[in-house]
């Protein structure tokens, strides 16, 4: 059976060139960058610094402003908690959008227990944050605004430049979670006026276990992990050298290929969107129709439950996600709250006819043929679920003027 991976938003395959770049750092150059009096450590140190330049280059930063972490979750936690701790004397108010990733939203919880206040800025039905709402939310004691670059579940790209402009005017720090966009669409920390920016390697054809936090020169962040003097003292712990090298290589490749890839993905995404719109009844697309991640198509179908759809898709070789990867985590203790994601709620999706959106997120190796295949199988899968759905039966009865049995 053909296998079609349409779940690049949860993670991406590692580019073979990235893996090739990493391999020597498992085999020949296994040193610890902190033990760099000798040759092995020196190779490792140079490799890390080389990767730092590349990652900095991807976002228009200087290498000194890039802190390597274990991933986007850590970067978000470091940004939120680190700024909160370093600037608590100035104020204890933080503004975020209501559709931030859990690693931003949940990082705020311990802060709220310590007296911080949070204003959640609403989004419209396409998932867009209104910069004016951000402006209104900023108070005299606001120290930080955090708005993501793009939302993974619904694909909407936020107006971060405008938000950056106004936070700069108001003298408030601006953090942007770019886990979903890094390496996929252009990022320029200066044009965006961001002070902190989260990147994730495994979302851009790099390895898992590595991320970065851009910290603008002069911005203070208290470390989350105390210990050695790595990463300018902002992130202790022996560096994940092969992972960082892989991240660097992924950044280098992205700089070269991002634009062409994005163009292709935009076309494929449009073909998928249009095909589904034509072939699947009762489909509702989520997110903004134009301001969205290239190759990202998200939607929900009335009377069809998300997980069941995903399982049938998988039985047909198609891998997709139900919104954010977390939402499909069956290990969660409290499943109830995961059913309709906070993102869907925020964009006003009616929870009585929708449980879970489907996110098709395409990657650089997906083809038009795969898109056509998925368009072809969707109607049949949806039909199967409708056939056993009590609500759909009621709906049909209603349409034909019948009665609920």
């Amino acid at each position, binding site marked *: 059976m053909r296998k079609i991976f349409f779940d690049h938003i949860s993670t991406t395959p590692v580019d073979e060139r990235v893996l090739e770049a990493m391999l020597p750092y498992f085999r020949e150059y296994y040193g610890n960058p902190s033990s760099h009096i000798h040759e092995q450590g020196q190779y490792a140190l140079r490799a890390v610094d080389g990767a730092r330049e590349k990652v900095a280059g991807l976002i228009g930063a200087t290498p000194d402003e890039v802190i390597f972490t274990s991933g986007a979750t850590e970067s978000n936690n470091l940004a939120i908690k680190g700024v909160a701790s370093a600037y608590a004397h100035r104020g204890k108010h933080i503004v975020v959008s209501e559709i931030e990733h859990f690693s931003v939203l949940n990082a705020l919880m311990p802060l709220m227990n310590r007296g911080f206040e949070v204003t959640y800025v609403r989004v419209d039905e396409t998932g867009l944050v209104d910069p004016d709402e951000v402006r209104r939310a900023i108070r005299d004691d606001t120290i930080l605004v955090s708005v993501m670059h793009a939302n993974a579940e619904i694909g909407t790209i936020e107006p971060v430049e405008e938000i950056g402009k106004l936070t700069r005017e108001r003298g408030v720090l601006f953090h942007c979670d770019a886990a979903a966009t890094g390496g996929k669409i252009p990022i320029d920390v200066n044009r965006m006026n961001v002070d902190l920016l989260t990147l994730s390697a495994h979302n851009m054809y790099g390895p898992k276990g590595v991320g970065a936090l851009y910290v603008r020169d002069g911005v203070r962040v208290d470390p989350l992990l105390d210990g050695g003097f790595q990463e300018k003292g902002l992130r202790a712990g022996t560096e994940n050298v092969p992972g960082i090298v892989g991240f660097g290589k992924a950044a280098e490749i992205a700089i070269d290929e991002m634009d062409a890839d994005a163009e292709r993905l935009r076309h494929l995404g449009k073909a998928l969107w249009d095909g589904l719109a034509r072939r699947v009844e009762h489909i509702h697309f989520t997110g903004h129709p134009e301001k969205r991640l290239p190759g990202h198509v998200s939607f929900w179908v009335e*009377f069809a*439950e*998300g*997980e*069941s759809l995903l*399982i049938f898709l*998988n*039985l047909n070789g198609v891998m997709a996600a139900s919104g954010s990867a977390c939402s499909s985590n*069956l*290990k*969660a*203790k409290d*499943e*109830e709250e995961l*059913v*309709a994601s906070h993102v869907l709620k925020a964009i006003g999706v009616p*929870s*009585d*006819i929708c*449980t*879970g959106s489907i996110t098709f997120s395409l990657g650089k190796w997906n083809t038009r043929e795969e898109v056509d295949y998925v368009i072809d199988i969707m109607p049949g899968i949806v039909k199967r*679920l409708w*056939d*056993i*759905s*009590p*609500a*759909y*039966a009621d709906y049909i009865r209603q349409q034909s003027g019948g009665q609920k*049995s």
Partner: protein
Amino acid sequence: MSIGPYSQKVMEHFMNPRNVGEIEDASGVGEVGNPACGDMMRLYIKVEDGIITDAKFRTFGCGAAIASSSMLTEMIKGKTVEEALKITNEAVAEALDGLPPAKIHCSVMAEEAVKKAIEDYLQKQKEKTGE
């Protein structure tokens, strides 16, 4: 085949659910859940001489919910009403070779559905007798 977090048995019932549909002249109907919470199960039973002679369902929900419904209908067919009332969610889950922890509530729904359907049946019986 087993897929995702589910046993082969769950998948088998998910892909080929038994007894999907409605019973026109059902003796009792039980509905539990609510689409807003992600799942809803509607169970129809036909009772003759105290024995459940037929059972059908429609379910909106995840793989476990559909498989639990399907398994439940298989389990109650041929049982007396009293026997069917004793079916626990554990029994449903066990018959499916287990469910992931987060999905146990689906088997609970199945247990509740049969209880409600029998309640409905008994209520209707009472109404009939009362007439």
